[in-house]
């Protein structure tokens, strides 16, 4: 068993946790914004896929990873814009529209991919990393944590930016009010629909970048249905975190570590079926819920469209 904890294994594990965790982190942070504002965003899986496709397409055509992330943000935002129009503006069922958008994005991206790339399956070159001077020389964790593509640092920094936003700014307060007591926000003279629209569009941007990360950094290519439930894990992370971005980060790393454990164990020469390891993060969350099951403090108006004057 001692060969399990070699340097190579640990580096592979931490690296994998980060690579698999960043898309989940971005999805979870994005979903959190929507949920804070009272929109249960089930379309996030579709937003991620759309971001993954456009993110790959742009990165492949332009050769620029940053433009690729821009494309991902745009892809996520396109899907989010439909959701804003139908769920926030018109107040249609968030469940129906969310699932429809996910199904539609799955089909559309797979179709477009098939028409464009099914013969060639092009790959992107590896992404350049940005070593942080000094820190990246630490043994084991240095290369895994501090020699990553710049987007990884940005995603982690976003956790603290969002935490500050919720805590110290008017916008953060407005978002929470839109989720907890939209009528009060309306009475205070703030447009509930606009606040929620901003929230859902931000979700689209973050989820789209998360999808683009999956395609451009993680896999190096676009595969139909490649998000494979990452958006739903994002929903769960956001709900478990109860409005605290730091918890989303912790959860994303836990899930990422478990998802990448298979590869790391293969590096160490241990052969365990993938499915067993894939059960780990879910089993862990269930165990935590059973042990510390408390009442979830979800926003009171979560999932309810806001209609002015309705009771």
């Amino acid at each position, binding site marked *: 068993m001692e060969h399990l904890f070699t340097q190579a294994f640990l580096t592979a594990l931490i690296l994998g946790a980060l690579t698999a965790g960043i898309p989940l982190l971005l999805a979870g942070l994005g979903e959190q914004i929507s949920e804070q504002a009272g929109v249960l965003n089930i379309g996030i899986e579709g937003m991620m896929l759309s971001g993954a496709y456009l993110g790959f397409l742009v990165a492949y055509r332009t050769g620029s990873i940053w433009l690729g992330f821009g494309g991902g943000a745009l892809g996520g935002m396109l899907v989010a814009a439909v959701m804003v129009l139908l769920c926030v503006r018109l*107040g249609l*069922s968030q469940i129906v529209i969310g*699932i429809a958008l996910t199904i539609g994005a799955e*089909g559309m991206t797979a*179709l477009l991919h098939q028409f464009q790339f099914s013969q060639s399956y092009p790959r992107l070159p590896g992404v350049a990393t940005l070593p942080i001077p000094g820190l990246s020389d630490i043994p084991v964790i240095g290369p895994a944590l501090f020699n990553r593509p710049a987007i990884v640092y940005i995603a982690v920094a976003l956790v603290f930016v969002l935490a500050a936003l919720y805590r110290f700014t008017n916008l953060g307060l407005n978002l929470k009010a839109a989720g907890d007591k939209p009528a009060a926000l309306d009475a205070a003279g703030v447009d509930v629909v606009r606040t929620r629209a901003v929230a859902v569009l931000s979700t689209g941007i973050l989820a789209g970048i998360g999808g683009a990360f999956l395609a451009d950094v993680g896999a190096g290519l676009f595969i139909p249905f490649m998000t494979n439930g990452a958006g*739903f894990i994002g929903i769960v992370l956001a709900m478990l975190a109860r409005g605290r971005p730091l918890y989303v980060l912790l959860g994303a790393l836990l899930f990422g570590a478990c998802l990448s454990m298979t590869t790391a164990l293969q590096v160490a020469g241990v052969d365990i079926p993938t*499915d067993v390891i894939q*059960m780990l993060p879910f*089993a862990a969350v269930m165990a935590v819920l059973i042990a510390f099951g408390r009442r979830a403090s979800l926003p009171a108006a979560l999932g309810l469209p806001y209609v002015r004057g309705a009771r």
Partner: protein
Amino acid sequence: MSAEAGVEAARPAHAAPTGVAAWSRWLRPVLLSLGPILATLLFSGALLLAFGVSPIDYYQAVLHRGIVSPSGLQEVLTRMAPLLLVAASLTVAFRAGIWNLGGDGQFLLAAVVVAATAPLLVTHMPDWLALALCMALAAGVGALWSLVPALLRAYQGVNEIITTLMMTFLGVSFANVLVKLVFLDPATTVPQTRTLPVDDRLPHLFDTRISSGLVVGLVAVILVHLVMTRTAFGLRLRVVGANARAAMHAGLPVPRLTVAVFALSAALAGLAGAVEILGVEGNVRADWNPAFSLTVVPLVFLARFNGYATILFVFLFSVLSIGGESAARLTGVPNFFTLVLVAILLLLLAVAEYADHRHRERTRA
């Protein structure tokens, strides 16, 4: 048609409301579903043209396979069986205000357990008994898989969206582990369970190829509809769903009812798994997951939890998915297009319902 109009005109004035009632009862729903369907055909037709495929050819193929050709229609009706059971499962939960999003895990685990036991049982007892036992077993497995979310929700107030989603991810992986490691058929190279011989499966209806699972599905949807709308038990559940706190004050045993709803809903999802295995698949291959639950959720919502409307929507969806597969092969459009078609239809159905709602509010005001 003209004779009817004549009768309508000949009626005395006080009978006029019947005409209005008939309009709102039958014609409006028909228009409300036909309108979005036509609009969907237009939208996706434009998409097909953009892909360089004739929409006429595509729709013709969908219609031919989905409705006109007997073998296609029989396939559609067979596909409806598990979808209807999943719909019944979701309806029970949603009407009682419980978000059971774990249907896929409950479905898949029940399917795996049934696939593992059915080939053994049929060698020891008459088919009808084996099939009945398997269905009961599937219902039990489904219900068991929802037990933890049910107890957490009922007694700890833990949000069931999280727990059921967790259990569904867990269940899908666990089902794979079972197929690959425990219930493996040693005679095959690809990991899958033993195959139930065709003769021992659910009987076909009459002389067709339609699985009798369809009857199980129809009965389940209608029974659920009647129980939820016509019985005291259903009323209690709906009260819990509408306002759990009020239900508590009215003296209803909310935690116990919550557990009952979970058990019922998950048992129906498990039954769907049994019907699919015993009627269609015969075995479970590794990584098989049709993920019916996710696609049925919007259908059930659009039907506003009404059983009869659910049957229509499930039929429409089955026609699209079976017909779409065939149309994809014939016209060279990848099968993914069916997903786009379904998505556009769902969006437009939701928009139509919204427009109707607004219209009614305005006419009332």
